[in-house]
């Protein structure tokens, strides 16, 4: 007679190993490393100048000389994309950075500062979440000047509420823990509590959110540049390349797929990385198990507590 096949939770097991346990995570990291490399060295490594117009080689398909073909002005697509990586990626990172700082810090703070502060910040966050980002980006570029970095400030501000909500929820969960009360009884200041007890527990949530928000920011960048907001041609960007490709769909139907795949793969990799982080950070929490299965069989030394919890 064997026992019923049911899941037993592994309470207390820390998320073991690194994020790279899963093959999907490894692939994602590989892709992102390549993208980051391109962002850094793209302009140096590009085989040709992204701006070099060649009237004799319009709409060419992939060839030895032009690995990804040429566009409507005869410019090498590969080079354009490689150089454009920097602008796209850096501004996406800029937006996420702004969102992180503007969102995560209040997210932790509102839990510890007074109630009126908490109320006010929450309402600001709610208001921001109602704004559509395209219009907001246009408005900000009108105010600050037409450049992609400026447009991404707008995106960053609009990403902040998401960081805020996630960080706040995670902080709330940990701020009421009994070990925090114990620290308060020892006279701990709120800063001490945050630094010692809360921060490291909230960090996994922040990391996961950062990864997925970077994906969102990258999509936003692509869309904004696709619409031509914030970028002056002939500066290459992923969205920009795709936009001009669509204008000449008849002549080169394959063309938009190239930047499209690039964007999709990068975004996908970021999301896969976010998933991998999330899986790792929840590996240490309690899995709801069949209540009958409560045996902590390793410890037989007066430990009734773990018997009920495993």
């Amino acid at each position, binding site marked *: *007679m064997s*026992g*019923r096949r049911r899941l037993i939770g592994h309470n207390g097991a820390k998320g073991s190993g690194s994020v790279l346990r899963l093959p999907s995570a490894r692939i994602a990291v590989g892709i992102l490393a390549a993208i980051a490399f391109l962002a850094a060295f793209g302009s140096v490594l590009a085989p040709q100048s992204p701006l070099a117009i060649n009237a004799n080689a319009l709409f060419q398909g992939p060839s030895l000389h032009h690995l990804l073909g040429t566009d409507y002005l005869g410019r090498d697509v590969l080079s354009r994309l490689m150089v454009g990586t920097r602008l796209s990626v850096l501004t996406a990172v800029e937006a996420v950075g702004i969102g992180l700082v503007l969102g995560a810090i209040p997210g932790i703070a509102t839990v510890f500062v007074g109630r009126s502060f908490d109320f006010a910040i929450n309402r600001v966050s709610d208001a921001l979440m109602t704004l559509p980002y395209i219009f907001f980006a246009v408005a900000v570029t009108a105010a600050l000047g037409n450049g992609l970095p400026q447009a991404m400030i707008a995106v960053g501000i609009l990403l902040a509420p998401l960081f805020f909500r996630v960080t706040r929820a995670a902080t709330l969960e940990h701020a009421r823990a009994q070990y925090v009360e114990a620290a308060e009884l020892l006279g701990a200041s709120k800063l001490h509590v945050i630094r010692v007890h809360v921060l490291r527990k909230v960090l996994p949530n922040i990391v996961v959110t950062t990864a997925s928000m970077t994906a969102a920011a990258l999509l936003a960048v692509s869309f904004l540049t696709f619409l031509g907001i914030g970028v002056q041609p002939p500066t290459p960007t992923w969205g920009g390349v795709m936009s001009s490709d669509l204008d000449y769909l008849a002549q080169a139907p394959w063309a938009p797929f190239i930047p499209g795949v690039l964007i999709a793969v990068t975004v996908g990799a970021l999301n896969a990385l976010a998933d991998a982080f999330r899986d790792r950070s929840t590996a240490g929490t309690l899995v709801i198990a069949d209540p009958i*299965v409560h045996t902590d*069989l390793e*410890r*037989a*030394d007066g*430990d*009734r507590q773990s018997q009920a919890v495993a």
Partner: protein
Amino acid sequence: MAIDNRKPWPDLVGAERHEGGADEVLRLDDLHVSVHNGAATAVRGVCLRVQAGEIVGLVGESGSGKTLTCRAALGVLPAGCAVERGSVSFAGFEVTALSRRDWERLHGSRMGAVFQDPASYLNPVITVGRQLAEVLRVKLGMRRRAARQRAIELFESVGLRQPERVFDQIPAELSGGMLQRVMIAIAISCDPELLVADEPTTALDVTIQAEVLELLRQLRDDRGLAVLFVSHDLAVITQLCDRIAVFYAGEIVESGPAAEITQRPRHPYTEALLRVASVGDFRRRELEIIAGQPPRVGADITGCRFAARCPVAVPECGSGQVRSVPVGDQHHVRCVHAARSVVAL
């Protein structure tokens, strides 16, 4: 469609029928239970008999194997655990190798169970009355009105005041003691022969615990219910049970009538437990302890498993398996010293 779970099952026609006493409700013979998919043996050579109308207590520290034994008796071992050797017999039928379906027919109708935290075994959004009535309808084929009536009667018989009111309450509205009574009502609703209780009062206030223990005694007296009661609290066990089995490191080291074991313990571990237990003599100021730790679950030890902590261990204790010997009327001890004195007789 009503399922009558009281008929003997056709599947078991070919099964062996043990000739235990006519009243023997549960019988465990040389039970060995392995855990972690066979990696370790957590229960070794357990022999136990429960007759109708008696309360048998299993007592021991955490990890001593008492809980696994009671789960084996119920047929609900956790994943990764299995009966390696020995047998479980219920009402004369060998049930060790029963299929899950047949176990489900046994559960509730002929065997009832109560566990430590009643709230986690009840649906939090359905009234307790409905939950009990559902059991009656499924297991006994009762109609709705009859089931409701019977449920209210059962609530009253387990000592719940205002049973009609309790019928319409959800678990969150009831206290721990009341919930435990509800669980007991559900467990005995189909008039089972055996009730298995695994630490049912551990989480209850002491005054409520006393009431629940009285209830169990009353059920034994009124219905001839056989009860298998598991607890780590020796005081509760000695107060409630007719017979006791003391577990240590997966084995039963002493078993016998409660009065006998309390007054004349023959195993050093039992003696130590008695000293340590929450004693009723409130004037005593000594707090006894047992030095050392029990062995890891499934540890491979030659000879007596308690020898490492035993104040009267001798070299003989480490050689070969120590067998359980009778030292009195239904009183068995697994100790080298007891075996010696028996031989000397």
